[in-house]
């Protein structure tokens, strides 16, 4: 098997697409997208981005729904390490390359780290304009009126946008971008992040990026607050964290328990408490 599975031509093409994406923050770049040994829709875009930039010096972390031990994260991590032999970790701080699905790690990222998102729908305009040819023209003209109308209609009928995750953001005051299905809780973390954020959509054959320290704002009306998920007075039953994104877990007796969604963050909080 070739190093990092993909043939060199494919890697070269993906790297070029990534460079273009970084040069135009939030702009959607097409790429050929090879079929991977993992099914389409299961992270093949993120996987191709990761495999084309990974090298022996990297330390890899893979999370799915905030968890390193989630089935798909395990599967992808095992595949990547089997074709690259890179070190893997669950520690957000030790990782140089983090592939994620649906979450941004709770612990703040640092310069030099790369966060690779698995993306199901790369174009936020798909919500309002499924025709890709028309959507491309709308992007070119920065014509996001249909998104604004949607936001207005939702606000008037339901008091807020009905978009619960993959909330539209404007990157660098220019492109409307789909941040992948992260909760709104994570949306502010996209902004001015110290790490390089890369987005790969395999099935849809698109790559886009947010370079470090780039302005990213949620699409919202000036006089409206951007509300993120809140868990009120709930805290993690394991580490007692009061401000992390929580999972609701029902036990066998039907009783709800709350735990940090980001398992590495939860572990690190416990470690901190033990030291004290």
């Amino acid at each position, binding site marked *: 098997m070739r190093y990092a599975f993909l043939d060199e031509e494919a890697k070269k093409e993906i790297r070029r697409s990534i460079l273009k994406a970084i040069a135009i923050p939030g702009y959607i770049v097409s790429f050929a997208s090879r079929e991977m040994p993992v099914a389409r829709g299961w992270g093949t875009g993120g996987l191709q981005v990761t495999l084309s930039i990974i090298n022996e010096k990297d330390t890899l972390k893979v999370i799915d729904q905030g968890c390193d031990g989630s089935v798909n994260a395990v599967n992808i991590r095992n595949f990547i390490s089997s074709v690259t032999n890179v070190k893997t970790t669950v520690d957000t701080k030790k990782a140089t390359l983090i592939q994620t699905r649906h979450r941004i790690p709770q612990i703040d990222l640092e310069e030099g780290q790369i966060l690779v998102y698995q993306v199901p729908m790369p174009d936020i305009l798909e919500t309002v304009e499924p025709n890709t040819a028309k959507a*491309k023209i709308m992007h070119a003209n920065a014509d996001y009126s249909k998104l604004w109308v949607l936001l207005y209609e939702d606000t008037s009928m339901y008091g807020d946008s009905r978009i619960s995750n993959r909330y539209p953001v404007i990157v660098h005051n220019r492109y409307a971008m789909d941040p992948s299905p992260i*909760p709104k809780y994570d949306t502010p973390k996209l902004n001015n992040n110290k790490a390089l954020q890369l987005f790969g959509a395999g099935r849809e054959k698109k790559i886009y990026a947010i370079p470090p320290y780039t302005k990213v704002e949620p699409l919202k009306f000036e006089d409206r607050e951007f509300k993120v*998920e809140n868990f009120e007075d709930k805290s993690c039953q394991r580490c007692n964290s009061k401000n992390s994104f929580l*999972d609701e877990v029902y036990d066998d007796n039907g009783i709800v328990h709350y735990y940090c969604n980001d398992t590495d963050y939860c572990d690190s909080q416990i470690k901190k408490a033990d030291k004290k």
Partner: protein
Amino acid sequence: MAYYAIKGGEEAIKNSLNFYNDFTKNSEKIEDDDLIEAFTFSIDKVMSEGSLYSKKLASQAIKRSAGDLLNASFFLRAHRSSCQRIGICKELDVNDMRLSRRISSAFKDIEGGQLLGASNDYEVKLLVDIKNEKVDIKNYSNKNNVIKSALTPLREDNLIKILPKEDEPWDITRVFPTAPYPRSSVLQVMSRGESGTLLGFAYTSMRGYGDVHPTIGDLRIGELDIKFIHPFTKKEVKIGSIEASAVESAGTFNKDENGDTKLTTGFGFCFGKNETKAISMSIIDLTLYNNSYTVGTEQIVASDFEMVMHHVDGIESFGFANHYKLPHYVTFQTDYQIFKSAKKYVDEQNRKDVDGDIK
């Protein structure tokens, strides 16, 4: 503890795959040669949708999938990604096919005759053993049947609409195009599309949502030689041959780019013996490029490039449909919270309406 149940995926995956392998273990007992011979149509479907011509690998993929053909095609596609491209073969012309079957429903008599070859079209589908009568074939010829398409006379008389030719064919495996889509890319997408999906799209235009009235001008199955320019000698060499299906269907007349009235045709082509897929593809090709002649509206599914280009690939639709099995508890949590707050808002508004307390 519930917390660890969510975390413990690794062992679960291993166990689950072991259970699954109980199915494939039985498939492994079948020799590749036997499978290739016994399930020739399955092999062909997998090679076509997997976009890789290898009967041996198709057989292994079918065994690894315990007969799930879409899954088998997926194995071939994945394998394809790890292969370095050596070069591009010479253009193929389906007129050069060594035919094993060729029919035309547009004409009663055609040059070279109707060549039925192997077909179950007129078989009565009863699950009881009905013996087919033995026939003495007297005029059987084993010469290479190379006959041009039955529509050739019309084409020579300049009666068939010719679409503009591209200088270089597109390659969707290297760059997926954006709209407007080059015709070569459209044909490629369909040629490796999922047979059932293509059939469904084509069927919409046959009844209800379109009006192409296709007539099969030429349907052929046969062998095509693959020729390649040798990198050192620069001479043309034959490197092998493939079996393929090709269909030219004729539609209604239409004006070409010079304003002349011409008969329209659609083209279908795929690896192996898969007439249904080739026919479906030719019909969709016809609707895509002649949508002004569809009755009703141009907005029908089968004449919409966006619909066809992004939705007929089996590997993609199958993967995405199955990804919904992955955990989605973060996104569902966000859905749930939004639902609760929207419900609260609407309830409050309704209460205000009842109380006549609208600001």
